């Protein structure tokens, strides 16, 4: 059997031989990053909402006590998971679960779990920032027409908060695509892990990881574009229609509006 002699020869050879391996690794990485970001977003949302609840002065003491206990727990969660590397969290959760709780989690499940909890800690702070950025006047206005805290959050604050933090959510997604590579320490068959095993067979580390880096770049680049497109969609129409003039009630004039830079 003869081996290629040039760099591009090797790249073509490896792609031919390990194309499916790269593809499977890419699929796994995308799956972990996507579900991890979505679950992380949900966790972050709940944590952030809980952390922004303000009880009235006259609320019963036990409720105030419970509230500050829960808030303390949530703050600790954020501190711990932002303050330790995800690689270490993966080891602790995966092997800890196995040795002491005797849970033999499938690696994919633990991978998604770890990425979700880790992302949740970051998202909680990002979303809290988004909630704070919506001016308090709108919350007061909602209250003044009788809307509850929950209704105000769902219909007024969160839609604006989420729009404002879309760039940061995109950031988290991109970070997750890249950082899921650390999960190779618990043998998750994501892109880095698969690349490593492909590289080992022929000792072609440079060629294999050159391909790997291109795949990562293609993923993050296309996802960044996709998110930018979604942001634009969320901003809605840049024009509005004036319905009915004084002379003709059926007339409709479209008024274009100059977009403010978000």
């Amino acid at each position: 059997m003869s081996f290629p002699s040039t760099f591009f020869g090797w790249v073509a050879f490896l792609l031919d031989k390990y194309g499916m391996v790269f593809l499977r690794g890419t699929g796994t990485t995308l799956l972990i990053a996507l579900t991890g970001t979505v679950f992380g977003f949900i966790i972050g949302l709940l944590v952030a909402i809980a952390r922004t609840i303000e009880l009235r002065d006259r609320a019963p003491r036990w409720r105030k006590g419970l509230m500050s206990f829960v808030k303390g727990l949530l703050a600790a969660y954020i501190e711990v998971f932002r303050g330790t590397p995800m690689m270490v969290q993966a080891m602790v959760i995966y092997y800890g679960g196995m040795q002491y709780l005797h849970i033999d989690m499938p690696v994919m499940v633990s991978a998604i779990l770890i990425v979700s909890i880790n992302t949740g800690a970051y998202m909680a702070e990002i979303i809290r920032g988004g909630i704070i950025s919506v001016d308090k006047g709108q919350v007061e206005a909602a209250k003044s027409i009788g809307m509850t805290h929950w209704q105000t959050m769902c219909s007024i604050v969160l839609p604006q908060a989420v729009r404002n933090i879309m760039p940061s959510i995109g950031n988290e997604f991109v970070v997750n695509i890249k950082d899921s590579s650390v999960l190779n320490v618990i043998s998750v068959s994501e892109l880095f892990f698969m690349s490593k095993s492909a590289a080992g067979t022929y000792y072609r580390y440079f060629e294999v990881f050159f391909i790997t880096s291109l795949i990562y770049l293609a993923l993050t680049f296309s996802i960044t574009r996709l998110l930018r497109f979604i942001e634009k969609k969320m901003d809605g129409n840049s024009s509005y229609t004036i319905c009915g003039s004084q002379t003709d009630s059926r007339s409709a004039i479209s008024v274009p509006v100059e977009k403010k830079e978000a």
Partner: protein
Amino acid sequence: MAIIEVSHLEKRFGDNTVLKDINFSVSKGEVVSIIGSSGSGKSTLLRCINLLETPTSGTIRYHGRDIQDGALPQGEFHSKVGMVFQSFNLFNNLTVLDNCVVGQMKVLKRSRRESEENARKYLERVGMLPYQNARPAQISGGQKQRAAIARALAMDPEALLFDEPTSALDPEMVGEVLGTMKSLAQSGLTMLVVTHEMAFARDVSDRVVFMDSGVIVEDAPPKELFANPKHPRTREFLSRFMQG
């Protein structure tokens, strides 16, 4: 009969007493203006009545029922007594129409169709129907405030509280908002208005309340208060205003 009755209301922020022993009431159909210099507690009083601030002590009754003791659901009270803010506070993620619809659907549990019909009725009343599809960022200050008034009206309230509704507006736009308020006053809506617009207080309101450093100094019909102020502090305030 009094719709809103405030008795012995006190509000402190830390050591700072903002309202001292406030007693007054608003009857059905009455238009009451509250005037006074900045920092006299006018806005805080209004915010206490709307429960955006919790009073330190004292009671606020709505049709004789204490709004703070929990017997009266706050959602119900809030839908009956609306508020118009100095900085409009429109919901920026919603169109003008949806600003007027969301409260009706969520709080009054009306259907979307009914809410939209009602919203359009009031948008037309304030002259904002043509802009129903616009978003708050796309319209002018005066238009925003008229939309905010329509939003409050769409809840079919018994009374509206206005917190310096024209203070954040360009001089040119003050007129359109005051005009809207004037027509509301003439239609018999109960209104409590904190304002620096002396002409509005004098010409439109049934009663004028003058506040100074957290107390009500004078409470009289506008003719009496403007022509013949009893208290020296009122005279001083008014003379400064009339010169300026």
